[in-house]
C-alpha cells in the first residue's frame, strides 16, 4: 500500500548516491526485499518506472531479490525459516512466530529488509 512512498525513498537514495559519484546515468539498481515486508514487488516496479522519469535513472534496469523470513528463538536459540501453521480451520496456512523447537515466541531475524544492494552507473 505504501509502495509509492517507499519506492520514492529508494529513488531519492539512488539519485543521492549517483550525485555523490558524479554519475551521468544510472543503469542498474539491485534491491533486496524481505518477504515479511508489506511491499508488493509488482507495485514497486510500477512505481519505480514512473518515478525515474525525468531523472538520470530513466531507462535503468531494476533487479529485485526476495529474501525469505528467518526467525531466531531467544529462549532455546533455534534459528531457521519461519514456520507455517496449517490448520484446516484457518483456511490458509498462517505464518507463526512459534518456535518449532520449544514452542515459545521467536523473533524475526531476516525478511523485513528493503535494501539498496547495488547500483550501476555511468560516469
Amino acid at each position, binding site marked *: 500500500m505504501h509502495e509509492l512512498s517507499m519506492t520514492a525513498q529508494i529513488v531519492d537514495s539512488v539519485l543521492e548516491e549517483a550525485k555523490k559519484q558524479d554519475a551521468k546515468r544510472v543503469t542498474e539498481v539491485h534491491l533486496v526485499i524481505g518477504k515479511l515486508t508489506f511491499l508488493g514487488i509488482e507495485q514497486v516496479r510500477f512505481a519505480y518506472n514512473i518515478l525515474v522519469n525525468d531523472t538520470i535513472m530513466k531507462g535503468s534496469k531494476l533487479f529485485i531479490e526476495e529474501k525469505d523470513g528467518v526467525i531466531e528463538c531467544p529462549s532455546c536459540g533455534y534459528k531457521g525459516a519461519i514456520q507455517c501453521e496449517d490448520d484446516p480451520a484457518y483456511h490458509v496456512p498462517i505464518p507463526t512466530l512459534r518456535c518449532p523447537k520449544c514452542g515459545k515466541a521467536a523473533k524475526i531475524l531476516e525478511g523485513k529488509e*528493503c*535494501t539498496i544492494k547495488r547500483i550501476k552507473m555511468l560516469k
Partner: protein
Amino acid sequence: MANNKEVMKGEEVTLEIEPGTDIIEVNKQLAQKNLKLMRKHNVKAIDIMGSIGAGKTSLIEKLVQSLKHKYRIAVFKGDLTTTIDADRIGRHGVKVVTINTGLECHLDANVVARAVERISLQDIDLLIIENVGNLICPAEFPLGTEKRVVVVSVTEGPYMVVKHPFTFMTADVTVINKKDLAKIMKVDTEQLKKQAKEIKPNMKVAVTNALTGEGIEELIEALEL
C-alpha cells in the same frame, strides 16, 4: 561503500557501488531515537493500530477515562483529514495533537518525532498514539513505542487475524472489540484469540466492548499500566 568497482570501456566508465541503504531501517533508527527520548522523560508510549471502524478512538476514550487520574496523558491522533476524533478525545481533558497525514496510509517515526516537539514530555507520563485506520501499512513502521496494540472487531468478520499475520507479529497486545455483537455476527471471539496466539505465542489478548467499557481493565492489565 567498501566495494566500489570501476570498469573502463572505451570512453565510458561504469561504476558499481554497494550502498546497502535499508529504507525500512531508516524509520527503525528514528523510532529508536523516539523511544530513547521518551524513556529519558519516563514517558510510556503506546501505538494503537487497527482497521477503519474497529473502535480505536472509542477504546482510547475509555482508556483515557480510566487512566487520567493515574497518569498525565497526551494523545496523538493520526488521521488522513479532519479533527473529529481529536475533538472526541479532547473532551476528556487531555492534550491531543492531530497528525493529519493527508494521503499517507500510516504514521511513521518521523511524523511522531515532529508531533513530540509540540508537547512537553516533562508534563506527561503516558502517550497514546492512534495510528491511521489501516491493518496493513502501520505494521511496517515502528514509532518508538513501548507497546503496540492491534484492534480488530467482530463486525469485520472471522478472518481478520489469519489474513494479516504479519501485522499481528509486530503487536504485543490484540484487542477483539465489539464483543456484544459476536453472536449476531456469528464470530467466535475465542477462535480469534487462539489465532492471535498461534501467530505470536506471547501475545496478550483483551476482548472488549469499547462503548460500555467492558474488558478495558483486561486491556490496561495487558498494557502493564
